[in-house]
């Protein structure tokens, strides 16, 4: 693990996830799971390491985030981390993955082609229970353990995984496979993947925003993963709002106790209209801002219950690649990498 060691000595600090090689990022739809996964991969690459970011939902979200052409089914360099690290990305195509899988493990070249001609590959990847999930987890497993000359090719693999509602079933699919196929190579492969997923080398991080449903799903997903003995990582709060007013003013705003006469005088000093509509409108907006922050505070307190490290990322008003670098920096400051 020469890369990992180089990284540690350069920074001289422990991160929260030393020893973790497979980072799985889940989260409710709309919480920015893909952005969080990309930022984490970039954060983990800092200090000369190599990370692989795996996309498995076929949306080409990573290509858009890194502003590059659509990713083929191949590992491509998508970003350079500070201090010489590299982030590679892979968008998994389940059909290609199945042919590759059959060939790699069972040397089924011609039979694999036969399966494809007869619709077997399509059958397997779209119809058969969980085959898709088996392939996706299998590919992540392969990349995590891949070595060249006794060295891991990637210091860490970050998976942009299915949403919270499906994550436990997704990660647990191999134990289902192992119980369906009780003998043979499929059984052995499934057992090995489960061993990695349940080991301390894996951490499942949950991205959330500070809204009721995503927070509830975060808590539920952590409990569900726990029940399946799958190790959970951090809770990553995305798009948190920063207070725009001093505490005393926030309190006054939420209590409806803003001094409207003083506000009118202040607005006049700035040469702005200070009629009742403006005054009432600004006071309402301040009250809603205060309410938003207090909701977020309450939900953040709720997120402490599962006793996981919590990282908080701001809502950045950009959509370019710079945002991923900024968020990766925030993650590193908080000990994620």
């Amino acid at each position: 693990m020469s890369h990992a060691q180089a990284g540690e000595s350069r920074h001289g600090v422990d991160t929260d996830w030393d020893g973790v090689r497979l980072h799985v990022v889940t989260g409710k739809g709309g919480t920015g799971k893909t952005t969080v996964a990309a930022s984490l991969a970039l954060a983990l690459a800092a200090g000369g390491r190599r990370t692989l970011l795996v996309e498995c939902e076929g949306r080409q979200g990573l290509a858009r985030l890194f502003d590059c052409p659509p990713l083929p089914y191949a590992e491509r360099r998508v970003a350079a981390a500070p201090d010489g690290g590299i982030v590679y990305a892979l968008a998994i195509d389940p059909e290609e993955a199945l042919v590759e899988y059959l060939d790699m493990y069972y040397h089924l070249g011609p039979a694999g082609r036969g399966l494809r001609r007869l619709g077997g590959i399509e059958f397997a990847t779209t119809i058969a229970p969980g085959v898709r999930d088996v392939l996706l987890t299998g590919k992540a497993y392969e990349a995590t353990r891949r070595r060249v000359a006794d060295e891991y090719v990637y210091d860490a693999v970050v998976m942009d995984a299915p949403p919270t509602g499906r994550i436990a079933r997704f990660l647990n699919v191999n134990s289902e496979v192992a119980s369906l196929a009780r003998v043979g190579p499929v059984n052995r492969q499934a057992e090995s993947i489960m061993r990695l997923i349940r080991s301390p080398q894996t951490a499942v991080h949950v991205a959330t925003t500070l809204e009721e449903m995503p927070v509830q799903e975060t808590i539920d997903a952590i409990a569900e993963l726990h029940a399946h003995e799958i190790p959970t990582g951090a809770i990553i709060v995305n798009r948190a709002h920063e207070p725009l007013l001093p505490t005393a003013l926030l309190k006054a705003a939420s209590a409806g106790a803003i001094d409207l006469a003083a506000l009118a005088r202040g607005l006049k000093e700035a040469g702005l209209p200070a009629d009742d509509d403006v005054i009432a409108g600004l006071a309402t907006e301040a009250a809603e801002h205060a309410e938003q922050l207090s909701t977020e505070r309450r939900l953040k307190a709720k997120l402490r219950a599962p006793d996981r490290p919590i990282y908080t990322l701001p809502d950045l008003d950009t959509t370019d690649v710079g945002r991923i670098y900024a968020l990766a920096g925030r993650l590193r400051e908080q000990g994620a990498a």
Partner: protein
Amino acid sequence: MTPLDIETLLDDPKTKVIVCCGSGGVGKTTLAAALGLRAAERGRSVVTLTIDPARRLAQSLGLKELDNVPRRVAGVKGELHAMMLDMKRTFDEVVEAHTTPVKAAQILANPFYQSLSSSFAGTQEYMAMEKLGQLRASGQWDLIVVDTPPARSALDFLDAPKRLGRFLDGRFIRMVLVPAKAGGRGYARVVHVGLSLLTATMTKLLGTQLLTDVQTFVAAMDTMFGGLRERADATAALLRAPGTAFVVVAAPEPDALREASYFVDRLVEEKMPLAGVVVNRMQQTAVPRISATHAAAAADALDELAGTDARLAAGLLRVHAERMSVQTTEKRRVDGFSLAHPNVQLASVRAFARDVHDLAGLRELGAAVCQPAQPTAE
């Protein structure tokens, strides 16, 4: 931009089915419930089919358990029923409806079926459409509002019936898994070679036990293939029938609008009846007169002055500036969307300060979506 008139859509007795679709996290489930409630309170007899509601929303609709049967919602002026989809039970019912009790029992007990009915990619989508077909056939309600599953791809539910059909017609599953059926047809030799190779492959990969389970399953299912295919075709036809309206729900975020674009294009391409797009959670302001730049500049100027009045005004102007800038960004995104889809009707709904999870909140949301669209500023 053409405004989308949801009120007329809800009131029109010719509207029989409203399908709410869109990517995850845009408030689709809540919006579907709000539309159902509003239509019921305006005098229609409504059932809403929800897939995976938040706990508190489910409670407010009186959905305590997943029992796959529509329940009357208390506290509503008018007739509103609600139900949550139980995917496995719906699949079991389909099996039971299409075969003999003995065969049905065999299928239900098969390990391969059990796994298929709870985790087949697309089962949830297919079963949602199946349930919709059942509700429509019952004729008990004059409006059905359906929420679609938070699919891996927002379009999965459109493909589900077709995909099931492909599965049933699949040469692969027939030839490989039920070798007896292939006998006696032409190409016997070729088929035979292919078969033995494939069967050997499958056995090698999966072990004989699983293969036997699958073969038993397919043999048992064989009797009901025809019925299922007809069913899948009927569901696909229902989605295109007059009286069905698709409402695409989006949020003013780049990803959600991109998904909405795919959705709209796909619905148009498939000749599905698209009513329009609802952009949910739009930031609004009470003081549109003062722009973001103006407010921020005034706040900076006030910082130069001492005094509590100036500090107070500066603080509140910064809150306003932030809001205006979010509003402007969102409006620009939505305008971009309508430029790209000039013929698609659009409605927008303001963001609510609080989470909507009770009937009062749903009523307020329903009213907001039906408000005439605000005039667009030039």
